[in-house]
């Protein structure tokens, strides 16, 4: 915002008394509703916590003096050569099958998981929104080709393709991100296409055309802002899918390769030890579960918060509270009458 704009705004507050009734934008309303959603707030806290832990993983590793790739065959394994249980010999969550610190490995795994989740979602969202808008806005043969392509991608046997790719190329982070992105954009595209089909019939699109706006300008300046709601929800819900996808690939051995830690390959190693070392399976699985659950709940929360109909639920709640209060104060108005309810609510 430029300086002059700031001055301009300041001036307008003084000049116009009706400015006092501040209109709320859709985003403000959404944020207000989201703030009151306990589940969503808890999810945000969990996600932030996980992100911070992932970022400071090297710090934790150095505090514990257990670098991620260093095995401790003497102190890190039991006499029988099995993983150590949590809390023993200074390993908070125990060790893995070669005596590495499980906590440090899970935190390094979080780095991979969150990175893959965010990067693939960013790629898939940009591609999905662009392709969906192009298909929906241009229509005709462009739409036919793109829509069939979307259907084809959605119908692909994902894991089989991934296995084939892994056989052809040596698995790397780039390949994994590429594969997951390729299978994630189509779901976003399909919904964006549908929304674009309905949005392009709006009169303001015709108004833009009558002003001489070209198709790209209309798509990115007029249609895209109106898509942001559903796209944010879809993107939030696509992050946990990507995380699980990455874990699946790594579990199958075609994702992140040892010695790099990933929740998927930790679980793959742990499956041989589930009878002797429960923690080896439970902690990485719990990290995966909690993270994906938090993203899913946050996505649901955002979807609810964007829906103007949820406003009524909150209003109804405050109504009930207000009614109770006014009944105890005045005791005159019939609390059961709808009239009383509406006046209280206002």
């Amino acid at each position: 915002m430029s300086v002059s704009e700031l001055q301009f705004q300041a001036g307008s507050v003084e000049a116009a008394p009706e400015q006092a009734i501040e209109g709320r934008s859709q985003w403000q309303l959404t944020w207000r509703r989201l703030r009151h959603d306990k589940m969503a707030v808890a999810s945000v806290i969990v996600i932030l916590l996980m992100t911070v832990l992932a970022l400071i993983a090297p710090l934790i590793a150095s505090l514990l003096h257990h670098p991620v790739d260093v095995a401790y065959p003497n102190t890190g394994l039991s006499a029988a050569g099995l993983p150590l249980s949590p809390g023993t010999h200074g390993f908070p969550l125990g060790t893995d099958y070669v005596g590495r610190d499980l906590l440090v490995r899970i935190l390094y795994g979080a780095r991979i998981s969150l990175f893959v989740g965010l990067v693939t979602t960013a790629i898939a969202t940009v591609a999905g929104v662009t392709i969906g808008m192009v298909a929906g806005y241009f229509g005709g043969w462009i739409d036919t080709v793109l829509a069939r392509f979307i259907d084809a991608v959605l119908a692909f046997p994902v894991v089989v393709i991934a296995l084939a790719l892994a056989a052809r190329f040596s698995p790397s982070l780039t390949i994994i991100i590429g594969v997951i992105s390729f299978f994630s954009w189509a779901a976003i595209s399909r919904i964006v296409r549908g929304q674009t089909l309905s949005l392009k019939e709006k009169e303001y699109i015709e108004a833009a055309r009558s002003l001489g706006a070209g198709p790209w300008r209309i798509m990115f300046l007029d249609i895209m802002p109106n898509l942001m709601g559903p796209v944010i929800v879809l993107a939030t819900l696509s992050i946990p899918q990507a995380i699980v996808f990455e874990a699946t690939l790594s579990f199958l051995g075609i994702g992140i390769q040892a010695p790099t830690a990933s929740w998927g390959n930790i679980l793959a190693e742990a499956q041989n030890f589930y009878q002797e070392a429960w923690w080896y399976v439970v902690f990485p699985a719990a990290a995966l579960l909690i993270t994906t659950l938090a993203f899913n709940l946050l996505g649901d929360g955002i979807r609810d918060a964007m829906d103007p109909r949820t406003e009524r639920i909150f209003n109804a709640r405050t109504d009930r509270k207000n009614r109770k209060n006014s009944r105890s104060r005045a005791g005159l108005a019939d609390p059961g009458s709808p009239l009383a309810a509406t006046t209280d609510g206002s």
Partner: protein
Amino acid sequence: MPRDTGALEASLSDEVLVQVDNLVKYFPVRGGGLISRTIGQVQAVDGVSLTLRRGQTMGLVGETGCGKSTLARCIAGLIPITSGKVTFEGRDITNLSRRAMQPFRREIQMIFQDPYGSLNPRRRVGSIIGEPFAIHHISSGEQRKRAVQELMERVGLNPEHFNRFPAEFSGGQRQRIGVARALALRPKLIICDEPVSALDVSIQAQVLNLLADLQDDFGLAYLFIAHDLEVVRHVSHDVTVMYLGRIAEQGPKTPVYESPRHPYTAALLSAAPAADPDAAQARQRIILTGDVPSPINPPSGCRFHPRCPKAQGLCSEAEPELQSKPGDPAVHLTACHFPVQDGEILARAGRRQSR
């Protein structure tokens, strides 16, 4: 708007801004099985000609579905024309490519019916009104902002509401935003597609007066579409009455309103509520029976004949030509075999006392 209601000088050809010749717009009806094929045509506009004059208003009236809005969109170059010709200041602008049309976009602007639907809810008013400048690369930054605020002031909006969203305005204010946007490029023609139909009557008058003032100040020509005859009478110099994609009657406002020749015009005028209760009682209301026929399969001959109180055998056989009737000024055109005479009471099908 019109202060001089006398007959227009048709000979002054330099006054002609837009000439529409025999404009036809058919929409294909697709259907069939697996492979879609055209199984019919919606004859939305079928051979319409009209002349828009610099600084004057042409009123366009007709029932819903008669092709008014389609005609407007064809003239504005928003949808391609099936056949016919549109010229702007003598230059052919029929079915130009988007790039070739660009200079004419600055001359022809539109105001839309729905003050809610025609403004993008996600964009701020300043950006909506400034959009024409951005598209045509005129001014930028501080200069553009000043231009937008001048426009807002000109149409009666508080220029300090620059940063607000459309949702924070009332219907009338939103329509003013639409007017400001249409005005931004100083066009010569503004096509108003039912600009006041969605507004309260009191707000309608304000917006109409604004449009009239702007016409005086900028010498704008309007193509004013409405289904409210009184509104059209108030704003127009000329009037075109459409029925099922064709012109029923066309001419300067006074002769068309005072001595309508086409039975359809007469029926429309008789259906409009009169402000004077005595006049309302004395009036013979013509009730049209039946519905508007489908434009996919319009009636033969005169398209109005199935509903016309004066229809005879000829009407279903031959299509009446749009021409001046005996005793009318040369610019008053009617497409009817049996035009209504002055003082004639249409005494057939479905007539009743207005009480």
